[in-house]
Structures are given as C-alpha cells and as structure tokens.
C-alpha cells in the first residue's frame, strides 16, 4: 500500500492506481467525465484536476489531472485548493457552452452525471453569451436514442463502442468544437453492446429508447435486484418499473460476472414481460375440442389441485424457471415423475458439463476470470451469439500482452491511451474453433470454422500436445502442428482458459475442451474452464435429480397411462417439435401449461396458467459457473399471473398437502429444494432471507423521492392502496424502508448516493474502484472442482464414417437476437431478429443453382425445412447452417445430417 496525503489527511491507497481512482476509492468526491472504471484514463476532459505538491515545503504546487498521475507513495495533493476548484469549475463552464440545458425534457435528467458533476464543481452562472453549436441527430435503431446537442465530447462512447466492445459503426467525426459522435449515416447500431452507451454516456446523448417510449424519471422508478434470464451467464440487472410495467433494465454491478456492462439481449429483452404474446389470464378448455376461455385464478388452481390428486401426473421442469418453481413441480408430482424439460441431446450435454465441473480439477471460470485469462481457446462456441457478455470479457482478455508490454515501458495499465499507443498490435492469444466465423475473430490469433468433429479432434490434439498422457486423436500433420502451437500458447500463459459449451451441440467438443483444461492442470497450470449453457437456469435444473429428459417424458407418456402433464415454463413445441408433442400427448387427459407466453402449445393445453416473469416473482437461478443467484420481483404479477411455484403450491394447499414445498413463502420452498437436492444445499445463502432487516427495516425498492404515490391510483380511488404484502423478499415494495450501502449486494435494489444521482454512484458502494461491493459478492458458488483429481481424460471417438453422397452436415447458427425465446418477444429486439433462412456457402449455392434469397428444401431426418437461402462464406466446406430458435426450426436436433431435396 502507498500513503497519499489529500488536503492534509492521510490515506492508504493501492499504488497501482491513479490519483482519481485512489481519491474515489477513499470515498472522496472528485468530478470526472472521460475516465471510466472499465475504460480507464485518457486525459481528455481535464475535469479531475487537483493540485499536486512536490513535497511538504512546496506551497505553490501544480495542477495535474488526477486520472493521469500514479498514486505513488508520498504523493501530496489538494482537491480543495482554490486554483484547482476554479479550474474544475471552468471545465464545466466550457462543457456547458454548447450544452442545451434541456434537463427538464432530457431522459437523463435526475440521473445525469453531467448534472452531478456540475453541482459538484459549483459552476452555476453562465458567462458565455454567444450562440451554441447545434448538431443533427441520427436514428440509431430500436435501442438507442441520439441527441448530439447534449454532447460534452468526453469520447467515452467511441472508446467503449470501438476499443472496448469492438464495434466499428460508431465513430468520432469532425474536429474542434464540432466533433460529432455517431454513425457515418443513420442506421441501426450494429454492436450487441450498444445499450451500454446509455450508461457510458455521462449525459443524455445516447439514451435508452425503450425507456423513452414510456418515460419515467429515475426517482419515480421502482427497482429491484434481479438476474438476467436471456442466457446462462447470470448477469446481474436492475429492472426498473412504474405502473406495473418494466421500463428498462440497468446494469447491476457484480465484480465476478458482468462488471459494468450488459449485452443488448439482456438489456432490451425485457419487452416480453408486456409483449403481445404474454399469457395474461388463466385459460381453460372446458370441453374436448372446445376453445379455451379465461377462468379465475382460484378456479384454475382448483382444477389443478383436483387433477393432481389423481396421482398419475408427470411434471416437465424448465431450464428457464427458478429452482423453486422446478422444485415445487417435482414435489407436486413426485420425484420419480419429474423430468427436465430439455431435449435428451441437450440434457446429456449439460449433464456432461456439470460432471466435468464437479469431477475434474479445472475450476469453472467466472466472467472476471475470463477477462483475467491471458490465453484462451474457444472450442465450438459462437460466444458473441450464445453468451455475449462472455465475448466482451474475452475481448478484454487479449489485452494482457499489451498491458505486459506497457508495464515494461513504465506505462501503467490504467493509462489506457498510453497502453494502446505502446502496444497497438499486441494481443494475448485467443484461438477460436467454431462452426462459423465469430465476431471475436478480429482479435483472435486464429479462427477457423470447422465441423464439430474436427473441432473436437483439434481439442483432443491440443490436450495431447500439452500432456502426452491425454489420449492422442492421431490427427493429420497440419492439425497436429496447429494443435502444438495452441498448446504452447496455453502452456506459456499464467491463467489459461478453455471455453466450450452446448452451442454446437457436440459432446465430443465438450470432452475435448475438458481434456485441454485438465491437461493444463496436470502440467501445473492454473487453467479454468468456461461453459456456455443453453438457458439461465440450465445448471440449476441440471443439478436437480430428475427421472430424465424431455424425450424420456414424452416416451413415458406414450406408454404409462399418465393422466396429467404439467409443463412448467417451456414451449414443448419449440423444444420437441409440434408433431412429436401432439403424438405424445394424445392419450393424456389433462395438459397444463404454466408459462409466460401464450404460444401454440399453451393454446392447445387444457389449462394454461400465466407464470409470473422475473420481474414479477422471486426465485433462484444457477448460472454457467454454478453460482446460485436470487432475483427479486420489481412489481406484482399481472392480474391472474403467479410465480410458477406459487401455482403449484396453491394447488397442493387446496389438495391438503402442507409439505415444505407447499408453504406460502419462497424461503420455505428454497429451503425445501436445498434439503432435497444435495448439490443445491447452499442455495439459501444466495441472498438474505425475507425476514432480514437492517435497523429493523426491509430495504426499500422505491427511492425516497418517489413522487405521486397517492395520485398514481387516483383514477380508481382517492385512498392510497396498502402496499402489497411481500413475504418472499427482504425488500419493501414501497419507499418505506432502509436504503444505503449497508444493504447486502444481493438485496441492493438501485444505486444512489448523496451528490451522485447517476449509476456512477456505484463508487460509493464498492470497497475500491472496480473491486467488490461493500458486502462482498452476491450469490453463492455451488460447484467445487476436485483439484486433486487425476484428470479423468475422455477418449476421442473414432472419426465418423464418411457421409453418404449428398448428405451434408447441418450446423446450428446462433443469433444474439432471435435464438433466445423470451427476448425475441420484446418489440425492440424483434426488430433486430433475422428472418429464418438456410445458410449455404456461395459455391455450394451456385452448384445447387440457388441464389441469395432463393428457396431451398432441406431434409433432416423426417423433417423438411423450406426456407430462403442466405449465403455464408465462412461455413466449413459442404456444411449447411440452420438458425437456432427462429420460427420453422422447432424441435430440430443439431448438428445433424441433411440433404438438399430441392431444387
């Protein structure tokens, strides 16, 4: 530690930081714009000026920019110095010359860093009496609004978008005081991280368009700690609500997971909560073949209860439902009759991954671990599309080489401009072998699209090159050379990482990735494994004991005289294909669908029960690294909707079953689940229990400045309604309650601190800048690796027989927008989803005589897809690509072999 003196007071700080970080970390207020904790220092805005003194005898001192000066031991500085204060006020005065002062109509007003910093510097009266500059704004697509007149040219947007996130279509144009931040022409921002601009921008240039559509000020928004449901990474979020409607999602800092950023799927996918396919009321088919009609929730629970009494029920759980809902279903139908609602093929992959995480020596990597990796091998996963936030972490991981070179040149890591200039072309190794090109390839040492079997062979060969005891796949010489190069790069790294997952659908790829990580462990390297899973609670569901997969459940239906099927939070048609589902359910008396969406499967069910979404109910998910995290509802469920577990509990209670899972409080269900499932024993620790109190108070979901609470319901009643009861969370539904840094991170509903109204108030909740929150990490890691385990190496399978003439490998192609079911229902995201297609290499298309957009029929097993052709040059030779999750691809098991039947 170093000691610095600020205005006569001594502070112990980390000498690896700059003075701005040191001051903020010490709890001092010092204004800044261009510095960002993740983007670091570039010295552009000159806002964080302080007076630095050479030594104790120096009385004159010198203005320096705090973000550009290392926090060396013995540094003496003053924030309060008159000249430094005057200079900082001048900087805001300059920034305000062109700013429109339109705070009352600006989306950022009330949570604007520029407002906060202006107040902090004390600048108030305008001396500039000349005209302001004006700009033309651009239409940037469905996610982000643009109002360039508000710009203060801090350059954060382009630094985030281009340098941090690898985007190319946003840039700085023009010069001097007309510098312009936008696209070359109007158009959709292409990067899947564009939504972060709304948080990175210190004022209202880039704003959340989905919020603007139904705008509410920060102080009128109710907020809760939540977890993203749109992929397996478990990024932490703050859904914000008003009038029972989610208005936006903000990033919720978790130092081990998402840090400061989310992807656009996670930020804008919330639109499904009030989307037009939302199931809004219980519906029941009262006569065979009749149309379903709405019924009351009480009546619906009654029917479910009656049907359950029969006993011949099976439950189909869901990887996107909470552990509590899955457990409640399991309790309701019996452990032997509970199935994971995951196709057998995928279920086996997830099971294999969980076994690898539990039985091997390589620990699972968090996103922070991924970012810290200094050599990465990606096997089979199109990370930017299946786990976008992980791709952002990997994009940072390649910077270690530059940081190392810069540090040798005495340029510290926080000096981002200097680092980029010292080492503009130095990347740590990132090797990618995926079915097609990925949006990380621009920073990869190598990215070669390949078929899953070839990817697996490469992985096995890398493992063998690292540890000769790992089985040798006996690859051809050129593949062996590549494998040896990759092995060497991984062996030279301090923190090598292997990324794999279910994305390309190959067990061999997952096993090969495990061999690589284990071989590294065996050679004494601190290797980690990162697995991408299909859904937000795939790991949680996978850790539960079940009677089998969805395929097993459907098979049992055909044979076992099952009377009742309860499908929890899943569209069975999408998972298994409508034909298979209809065939399996033909003999079942009662089909119950509990889900958010009114999909075709729910429409055909005898009883469709609206399940509360993440915004409306609390529960626990387990993310891809085995971390259990609690999400808490931000508003009451839609009238008629209930949490999945609550529907089941209500039905059990009506049936007179008062076992733990049938009790009224979430904590009881969580505890019952923990007791019943040994791998989940610690999930109770994921967050404080509902009866946790701080100074006798629950934590308030609403800010103390919430306005209009007696007027909000005035169209219906002049009396203020009592706040809803909330037995499930340690939060209060209103502004009554505790708010402050003592709230546990897992139960902290929003960020706000005196003088800091924007999300940048986060620095008041961290132990140090960019470090853990005051209360430590939220959530609990459930899976421990076996460091002592000798690697239980997998053996490569013999190469598949050569395909029959005309057979082509059909590969899954993932889309950040479109492949995930719920987010694709959000209106803003829907605009970004591609239309269904079949991808062909241009030369294959030419040979088949079809052009881009021409129609093609592709036979896969007994299915035939008829879709337009999209040309895709980066597929492996001969392969065909089919988009995952887009309409027309329901129930497909990929990869597969297919045959073009027309033209």
């Amino acid at each position: 530690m170093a000691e610095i003196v600020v205005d006569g007071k001594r502070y112990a700080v980390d000498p690896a930081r700059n003075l701005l970080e040191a001051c903020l970390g010490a709890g001092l207020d010092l204004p800044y714009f261009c510095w960002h904790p993740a983007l670091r220092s570039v010295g552009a805005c000159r806002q964080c000026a302080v007076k630095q003194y050479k030594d104790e005898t120096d009385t004159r001192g010198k203005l320096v920019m705090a973000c550009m000066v290392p926090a060396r031991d013995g540094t003496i500085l003053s924030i309060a110095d008159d000249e430094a204060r005057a200079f900082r006020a001048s900087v805001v005065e300059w920034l305000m010359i062109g700013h429109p002062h339109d705070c009352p109509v600006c989306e950022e007003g009330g949570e604007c860093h520029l407002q906060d910093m202006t107040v902090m510097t004390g600048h108030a009266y305008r001396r500039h009496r000349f005209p302001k500059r004006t700009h033309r704004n651009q239409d940037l697509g469905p996610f982000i609004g643009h109002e360039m007149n508000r710009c203060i040219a801090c350059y954060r947007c382009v630094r985030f978008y281009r340098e941090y996130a690898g985007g190319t279509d946003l840039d700085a144009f023009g010069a001097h005081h007309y510098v312009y931040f936008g696209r070359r022409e109007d158009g959709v921002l292409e990067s899947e991280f564009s939504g972060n601009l709304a948080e990175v921008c210190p004022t209202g240039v880039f704003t959340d368009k989905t919020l603007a559509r139904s705008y509410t000020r920060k102080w009128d928004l109710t907020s809760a700690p939540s977890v993203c449901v749109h992929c397996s990474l478990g990024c932490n979020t703050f859904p914000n609500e008003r009038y029972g409607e989610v208005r936006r999602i903000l990033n919720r800092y978790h130092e081990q997971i998402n840090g400061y950023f989310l992807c656009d799927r996670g930020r804008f996918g919330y639109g499904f909560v009030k989307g037009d396919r939302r199931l809004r009321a219980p519906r029941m088919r009262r006569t065979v073949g009749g149309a379903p009609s709405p019924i009351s929730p009480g009546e619906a629970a009654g029917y479910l209860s009656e049907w359950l009494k029969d006993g011949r029920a099976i439950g189909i759980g869901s990887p996107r439902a909470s552990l509590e809902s899955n457990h409640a279903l399991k309790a309701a139908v019996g452990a032997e009759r509970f199935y994971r609602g995951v196709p057998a093929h995928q279920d086996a992959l997830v099971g294999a991954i969980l076994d690898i995480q539990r039985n091997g020596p390589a620990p699972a990597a968090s996103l922070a671990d991924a970012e810290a990796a200094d050599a990465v091998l990606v096997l089979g996963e199109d990370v930017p599309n299946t786990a976008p936030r992980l791709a952002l972490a990997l994009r940072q991981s390649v910077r270690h080489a530059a940081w190392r070179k810069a540090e040798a040149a005495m340029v510290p890591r926080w000096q981002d401009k200097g680092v980029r200039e010292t080492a503009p072309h130095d990347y740590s190794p990132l090797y990618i072998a995926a079915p097609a090109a990925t949006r990380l390839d621009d920073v990869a040492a190598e990215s070669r699209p390949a078929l899953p079997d070839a990817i697996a062979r490469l992985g096995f060969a890398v493992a063998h090159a690292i540890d000769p005891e790992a089985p040798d796949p006996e690859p051809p010489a050129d593949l062996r050379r590549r494998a040896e190069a990759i092995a060497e790069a991984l062996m030279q790294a301090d923190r090598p990482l292997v990324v794999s997952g279910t994305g390309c659908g190959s067990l061999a790829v997952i096993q090969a990735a495990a061999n690589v990580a284990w071989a590294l462990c065996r050679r004494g390297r601190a290797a980690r494994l990162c697995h991408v899973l299909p859904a937000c609670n795939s790991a949680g569901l996978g850790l539960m004991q079940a009677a089998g997969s969805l395929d097993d459940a459907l098979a049992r239906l055909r044979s076992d005289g099952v009377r009742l099927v309860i499908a929890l939070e899943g569209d069975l048609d999408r998972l298994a294909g409508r034909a298979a589902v209809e065939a399996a359910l033909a003999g079942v008396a009662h089909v119950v669908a509990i889900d958010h969406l009114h999909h075709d499967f729910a429409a055909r069910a005898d009883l469709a029960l609206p399940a509360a979404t993440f915004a409306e109910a609390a529960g626990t998910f387990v993310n891809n690294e085995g971390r259990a995290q609690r999400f808490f509802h931000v508003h009451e469920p839609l009238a008629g909707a209930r949490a999945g577990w609550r529907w089941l509990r209500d039905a059990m209670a009506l049936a007179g079953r008062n076992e733990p899972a049938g009790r009224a409080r979430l904590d009881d269900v969580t505890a019952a689940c923990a007791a019943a499932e040994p791998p989940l024993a610690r999930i109770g620790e994921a967050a404080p229990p509902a009866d946790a109190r701080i100074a006798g108070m629950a934590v308030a979901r609403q800010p103390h400045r919430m306005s209009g609470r007696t007027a909000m319901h005035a169209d219906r009643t002049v009396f203020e309604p009592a706040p809803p009861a909330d037995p499930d969370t340690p939060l209060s539904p209103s502004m009554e309650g505790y708010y402050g840094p003592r709230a546990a991170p897992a139960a902290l509903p929003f960020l706000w601190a005196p003088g800091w109204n924007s999300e940048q108030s986060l620095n008041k909740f961290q132990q140090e800048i960019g470090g853990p929150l005051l209360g430590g990490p939220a959530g609990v890691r459930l899976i421990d690796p076996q460091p002592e385990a000798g690697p239980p190496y997998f053996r490569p399978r013999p190469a598949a027989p050569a395909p029959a003439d005309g057979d082509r490998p059909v590969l899954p192609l993932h889309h950040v927008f479109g492949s995930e079911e719920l987010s694709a229902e959000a209106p803003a995201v829907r605009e970004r989803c591609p239309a269904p297609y079949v991808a062909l290499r241009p030369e294959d298309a030419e040979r088949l005589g079809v052009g881009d957009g021409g129609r093609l029929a592709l036979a896969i097993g007994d299915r035939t897809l008829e879709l337009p052709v999209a040309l895709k040059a980066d597929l492996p030779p001969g392969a065909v690509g089919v988009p995952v999750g887009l309409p027309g691809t329901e129930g497909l098991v990929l990869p597969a072999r297919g045959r073009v039947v027309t033209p």
Partner: protein
Amino acid sequence: MDTPLTANIRPGEPPPDRRAYEAAGGYRALRKALHDMDPEQVLDELKASRLRGRGGAGFPTGMKWNFIPRGDDAPADKYLIVNADEMEPGTFKDRHLMEGDPHQVIESVIVGAYTIGARHAYIFLRDEYRLCGARLGRAIAEAEDAGYLGRDILGSGFDLTIRLHTSAGRYICGEETALLNALEGKRPIPREKPPFPQASGLWGRPSVVNNVETLCNLPHIVLNGAQWFRDLGRGEDGGTKLYGASGRVKNPALWELPMGTPVREILEEHAGGMADGYRFRGLLPGGASTGFLVEEHLDLPMDFDPIQKAGSRLGTGALIVLDDRTSVVGMLRNLEHFFAQESCGWCTPCRDGLPWTERILAALEAGRGRAEDLEVLEMHCRFLGMGKTFCAHAPGAVMPLQTALQYFREDFRRGIADGH
C-alpha cells in the same frame, strides 16, 4: 557568411536536379557517412554539434535520437519521419528548403535514417505544398535511379525507402504524435507520453519525427564536423537559422543567418525596417503560437533561451510584425479563429475554450465587448496554459493573447461597449 542550407537555392529558378546537386557537393555527406562512419559516429557528431530542433520546440536532436533503440537486438522496423507539415502561420522556411533544394532534403533523410537504423522514412507534407510535393517526388525518383535509395545503398548494405505522404490538412498534424496518428490513418489526436515515439511511434515501432530544416543540417554536420557547425552561431547555439519576416516591413522575406542574430538586425537590416507610414508595435518571433516581443526586446539574440526568457518562444523564427495601423484585437481574433478551428477536439479547455476567446475578441473588435470579457480572456490565458491541456496547442494559442493583454491592454479596453 556561411549559408549551408540555402547555398544551392536560386529563387525564381528551378531547383538543382541530381546532377547539379552532386556537382555542388551533394550526396558527399551520404557517401562519407555510409563509407567512413558507422551510425554511432554520425550520432556522436550530431550530439557534439548541439543541433536543436528547428520545428519550434528546440529539443536537442542528438539527444532525441539517442533514445532510439539501436544495435543488433533493436527492433527491425524503425521509422524516420520528416515533419513537413509546415502550417505555422507566417512560416515558410521548410517550403523554401523543399522547393529550392529537394535533394538536400532527401540526402538528409538518408543520412538520418542510416544513423538511427531506419529502413523506412516518411515525409509528411502539408497538403497545400503541391510544388514541394512534385519536386520532392522527382528528387526521390532521381535518388532511387542513382542508387541513393532502395536496397544496399552505395554498396553499404543499408536499405531505405522514402514515402511521401500528403496530409489531409490539419495544423495539429505538426504535433509529432498527432502526425503519427494521422500517418496511420487515425484521427490526428496527440498521443500520450510516455510512450515516446522513440520507444513506440509509428505503428508502435521506434520512430523519430524531425522538422525539415533540422534534418537539412545533418549532411553539413557530417561533412564539416560539429565544431564547424557550432561556430556558425553567434550565441549559445550553433548553426544557421532560416529567419523570416512578414507584416508591414519594407522587405518581407526569408534569410539564412547565424543562429542568435539579434532581432533588431533581422528587422532593420534584412527586412528593411517598417514600411513607410507604419510604426513598430511588436512582433511574434516564431510564428503565431509565440508571445509578443516589443521594443525593449529588440536587441535580444534570436536564439532559443534568450527569447524564452523574454516570455516568448523562438518557435520557427518567422517574425510576424505588428504595426500601429493594424488592430491588435483583430489580429488576435484572426489568430484565435485559426487556433480554435485547428483544435483537434480532444481536450475540453482547448476545444471549447479557444472558440470562446475568438467570440469575445470578435465582440471586442466590433465594439460590443463587456468589462468582464478581459477577465474571461485572462482566465483562458491562465487555464489553457502548459500542463492544463493535453498537448501544447492551446498553450501556444494563448501565448500571443496573453502577451497582447500584457502589452496592449488599452486596445482591448477600447472594444468594451459603453455602459458595460
């Protein structure tokens, strides 16, 4: 009087071609360096000459080059970059050298590249200097034909290519690190130091950037030795300097004179004194980004240190002379317009402060100033000073303003409207 830099230049006539240049002794320095000296010897001679950069900052060239990694384990790719982006208002010395004796520039580049071990050199040329571009292009081609460029130059084993790059036209590209960014096709924003270009310059490789006039001294130092060079100067620093004068003087022009020639001598003997009917009020000694000197300074030698001590900078040595019939405020308004427009837009004080000074100066010029305007201008002079902005653009921009407020304050006061 020795005028090594301009000896071959005949204004109004085409420049010497390769043969004429050789006939006048050209490329002898190159032969001497390649055949008789190793790079370290050239560098030692350069250091001993105490040549200081002629672009304006006056940094010792030998010291600058000494930071370039050399020897067998130095990176293979190094770059010598000629800063020919002469955009300093009032300055046209490099143009004179490039138009008048392009082979001297080329020979200088080759000797310089040999010294630091660079195999690639770039000439970063101001957009408007079309004639320079044509003449340098021809000289490069002639030098290539004669084996002065390319592989194994004159049998020495040394390889060099020179590329001529024409700027898209921004004053800030004269700042050496902004120049590097521009050359890489990026926005011309000055870079952070460290890394210094010698460690990580163009494309992240060791690079030196030198002004045209600076480099042109190198062949003469190689041929005649450091002592000869030092003896050329009249004061502390050695060599000659291209001084110029513009404004209401009888003979606005450019002269190669010993370094340290007194201001008065340049103004009165060479420029011929003030034009008839005009009286001297002050001058900017080295282009627009230097501070005013007035009557009391006229006997100072035009050398780096004495001019700096007088509160200005030698800059490019191009005098801009202010007379009694030109509006001081109007001149400053014009200058600040230039500097505001040429700000790269990176840091706040420069980007947003300079346009404000321009607007205030325009108001004062139009007689619509306010009493507090002088305060605001002074605030800018203070807060756009060295160390407070990212690079030296704004400090240079406020230097004439600050000194004008010091010496000609009454002129500014006259612009304040009645009642304000």
